[in-house]
């Protein structure tokens, strides 16, 4: 089963990754090929098997709610591509 052009565009939109026409064709081909290799899993009987999210037996790690020193505003903003005062600056989000 080959992924359709629309499916690839839908995934790209969900992932917020811009794609060109050439990318779409390439991803159709390559993703389909990879997914085909996953089909084997469906043959395996996993009825009654619980899923594993991680491999060790840690559960519900919690921390005390204590005030601790944190990074300075300058350190936090030092890598900001666009900044205004003490804020990260972004382009317009809501348009009228």
């Amino acid at each position, binding site marked *: 089963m080959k992924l359709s052009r629309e499916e690839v565009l839908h995934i790209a939109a969900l992932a917020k*990754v811009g794609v060109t026409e050439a990318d779409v064709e390439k991803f159709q081909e390559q993703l389909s090929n990879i997914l085909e290799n996953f089909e084997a899993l469906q043959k395996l009987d996993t009825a009654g098997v619980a899923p594993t999210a991680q491999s060790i037996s840690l559960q519900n790690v919690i921390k005390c709610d204590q005030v601790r020193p944190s990074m300075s505003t300058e350190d936090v903003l030092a890598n900001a591509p666009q900044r205004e005062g003490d804020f990260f600056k972004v382009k317009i989000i809501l348009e009228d």
Partner: protein
Amino acid sequence: MTTLKQFTIQEAHQLLKTQQISSVELTQFHLDRIQKVEPEIRALVTVTAELALKQAREADRRIASGNMTPLTGIPAIIKDNMCTCGVKTTCSSKMLENFIPPYNATVIEKLNQNGLIMVGKANMDEFAMGSSTENSAFFTTHNPWDLSRVPGGSSGGSAAAVAAGEAVYSLGSDTGGSIRQPAGFCSVIGLKPTYGRVSRFGLVAFASSLDQIGPLTRNVQDCALVMNCIAGYDSCDSTSVQIDTPDYTQSLVPDLKGLRIGVPKEYFVEGMQPEVKAAIEAAILKIQELGAQVNRDISLPSTPYALAVYYIIAPSEASANLARYDGVKYGFSCQDAQNMWEAMEKTRQYGFGTEVKRRIMLGTYALSAGYYDAYYLKAQKVRTLIRQEFDQAFAQYDALITPTSPSIPFKIGEKINDPVQMYMSDVCTLPINIAGVPAISIPAGFVNGLPVGMQIIGKHFSEDTLLKIAYAYQQATGWDQVKPQI
């Protein structure tokens, strides 16, 4: 070209301790070596000469005051996905090309407390996604044993640098084989510790249920020394486990009597190079001669499904982890857009390389409505089966032995246009991350002058057993003494 002196941590420590050499001299020696070999090897994204010499002067003062540890004053290289305060941490990606972390990863803090000399940051596959360093956005690292071949990946820079003598040891990270496969390809030691043994705080996240940090070294003794420093609980990493860290040097006794070792037949996969198979069989024979009881015919039947499980789980987690690269807080940002959403899409289109985008797309698909049960949930269930089979095997055996990779290092360019072929290169290492158990790759000889790695796998938190077996084998074979001619 001739083979220059390559120090081990132990040798360098002895010279520093008896003040036959200063840390500044040792550091300058490695910086000179870097200058000499880097044009051909290209293992480093950033060379931190000034920082290294400053750290070396501090180390010399510390040594003079008699307050040194085994790692004090010894030059190391860090994979470029571990945050180093004030030093660029790029993940070999255009996305983070100019990113300067405001804090250190916990492993860096721990090494600093021991007098780290950092001479550089190592090249890798972009965001640790790849098996050859060919996915680096900057350049490909070359294998010191044959410059036309890949060093493995994703920690290819870390492995090649140690093999080529650019530093005494390095750190790598391993999500599906990224320490062990390049260690095997470059004939160095590479250990992926148990999930939870080493803090990942400050490691740029790829697949959070699989990632681990570990050492790449020239011999097993050095691996134990680095592990003594970096292992242990860290409250900053909620997956870090509160369990005692043994002194790993105590496991370095060359005696395997009473140890039970299994060889799972599924790891000798179809398409494996027969010479690799023969080298591993000879290594197993040697381990048997050293006193271990070996069963060559054990079975972990779910192994053939590990590749699919991995390539569903890892990209799914990556698609979530890499959502943070939106061009707002740090990293590459495309401003040529009408609104924020377009800016975000363009940032990710131009900031990420092909393989990273491929995996984000794959993970997004596997987690999307209508496919979650068929892919992600199914993979998590099969993950349980794989984990249980390891548990059952370790009820009977102290360790398992397999090849590290089914082939010797391949040519640069050979697999880059065939993702599935590239993924096959990690077929023997992926199941280990899925189960969260520790595994080490150690040199097991050569095929046509190219390295073969042997993988030793243990139960959770049994790094000491792995080091013991690796040490006994190394002492009996001397493969650690063979160096590339560069």
